[in-house]
């Protein structure tokens, strides 16, 4: 019972995988497909890990999807202007960190509710992206070496999966094993207490927002690499799914706290369900019905473990 309560959502993920594997042993259950799922979830998970950092301090960053789109468009434009891959990465990531810093300052320094601050600032970023791209999908001038950063495999693992593993490991260590991470959790847990003991609340919050935007930009770069094109609203789909992953993850482990392992479980549930349902050939509308139902079930599992209390 405690097991169910503590690891309910994780068990739910295992159960979902098991059910799909039984329903479709050859296609879904194949090693190749399972590895492929890690690749399919990777960009979403990277964005969600960024969102996790901001959720840890108790805020929302609704500009992530705008930053994903921006990063792709900016990168392809810069390639068009002749920049090298390394400098494109550097420029785009630094710009994104700066954008995140602005959001963070609005929230931490000027006390604008993060929901409205990042929504408004995201709108501004969206306008910028439209301006740069003229609203068009950009695809020419992308160096093949850049494309390889988002596709293919290395050591038997898809490249995006490797990016995810790296990102997740770093942020997980940061949150779980460093003083910075403890501070972020303290700020999220009780901002007043954090302030009273003299933590640099504002600075740390700004860093969390900056990192969130940085990771969103990384995902945007990888998306452009993977698709070989950049679309001015290409990141649109990431916002709600990223938060779904974070919230699912919050129900996965410790009492309702956002965490990197939790977010990974959340992103995995989302990816597995959509992969599995597509492989089983479930029609679109039923996929929606089932996705919603499975996610609810995954969260509710915990409650049954709790009933014993």
């Amino acid at each position: 019972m405690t097991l169910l309560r503590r690891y309910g959502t994780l068990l739910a993920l295992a159960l979902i995988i098991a059910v799909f594997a039984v329903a479709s042993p050859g296609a879904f259950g194949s090693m190749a497909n399972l590895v492929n799922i890690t690749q399919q979830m990777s960009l979403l998970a990277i964005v969600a890990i960024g969102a996790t950092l901001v959720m840890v301090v108790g805020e929302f960053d609704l500009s992530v999807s705008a930053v994903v789109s921006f990063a792709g468009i900016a990168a392809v434009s810069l390639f068009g202007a002749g920049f090298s891959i390394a400098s494109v990465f550097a420029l785009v990531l630094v710009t994104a960190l700066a954008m995140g810093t602005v959001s963070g300052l609005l929230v931490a320094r000027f006390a604008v509710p993060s929901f409205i601050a990042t929504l408004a600032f995201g709108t501004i970023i969206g306008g910028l992206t439209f301006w740069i791209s003229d609203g068009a999908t950009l695809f020419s001038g992308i160096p093949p070496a850049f494309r390889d950063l988002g596709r293919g495999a290395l050591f038997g693992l898809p490249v995006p999966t490797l990016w995810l593993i790296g990102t997740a490991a770093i942020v997980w260590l940061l949150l779980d094993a460093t003083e910075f991470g403890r501070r972020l959790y303290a700020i999220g847990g009780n901002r007043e207490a954090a302030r009273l003991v003299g933590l640099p609340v504002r600075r740390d919050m700004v860093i969390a927002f900056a990192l969130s935007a940085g990771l969103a930009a990384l995902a945007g770069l990888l998306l452009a690499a993977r698709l070989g094109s950049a679309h001015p609203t290409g990141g649109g789909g990431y916002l709600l799914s990223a938060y779904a992953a974070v919230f699912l993850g919050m129900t996965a482990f410790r009492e309702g706290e956002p965490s990197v392992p939790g977010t990974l479980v959340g992103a995995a549930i989302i990816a597995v369900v959509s992969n599995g349902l597509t492989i089983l050939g479930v029609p679109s509308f039923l996929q929606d019905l089932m996705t919603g139902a499975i996610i609810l079930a995954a969260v509710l599992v915990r409650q049954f473990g709790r009933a014993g209390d």
Partner: protein
Amino acid sequence: VDIAVLTPYQSSVATNQMIKVFEDKARAAGWNATVVDTRGDMGQLASRIEDVTAAKVGAIVLVSVDPKQIQDQVSAAAAAGIPVVTIDGATAPGVALNVTSDNFELGTKLSDFLFDKLGHKGNIVKFYYSAHPGVHQRELALDAALKKNPDIKVIAEHYMVVPGPIDDARKTTEDLLKSQGDQIDAVWAAWDEPAIGAELAIEADKPDSKIIIAGIDGNPQAVELIKSCSHIKGTVSQDFDAMAGLAADGLTKILAGQKPEKAELYAPAKLITPETLGVTCP
């Protein structure tokens, strides 16, 4: 003259291209065109038409939208003496001119091309998006073509996620390749973006397969891919440039107080294949 160009789909590749060409023509004609995009939101679109009507613009150009979805506002604009022209739209009361491709015909061309390639026998995957009335016409054309070709089967169909259709099609195709990769013979894409996504997945997971893909629009990225002998073997190109041009010409006449000779003009659709591009693929 101020011209208001309104659309819910500015970031859609084809729509974007039509708008750009129209803007060029407008500039050449000395008009001052401003573009308003409502991100897929029809309620917003209705409001924005009201606004430009209130601002008494010289003309309203609607792109990639069926005016029947916002009939009241179109009628009100027309009643206020503002000419309404649609590109990639439909005829409706109050619309002075619609320049479009015949979407049913586009769908028929696409289906016929694919079915011919398959020898009228085989399994296809269908990527569609019925919410868009024009795109929906193409699905109806597919249904009609399927009736005539009993040996063609739709073994999977996917309703596209918009925005982000390329990535969505890519993921879905990856999944379908896993489950029924051996049975799929062709991908029928209601427009080119899903086709591009499907190509990315096939190129990554099954580069040697014989699956062929075809779409609609003549999207430059798709044309590029056809040229490079990818799995995309055809796109029914809408002549967006011609459409925008015809619309601009029509508008010039209307603004000069004349009536366009026809209320609806079709831009010719033509099939683009490796052959028409002059490449020979292995």
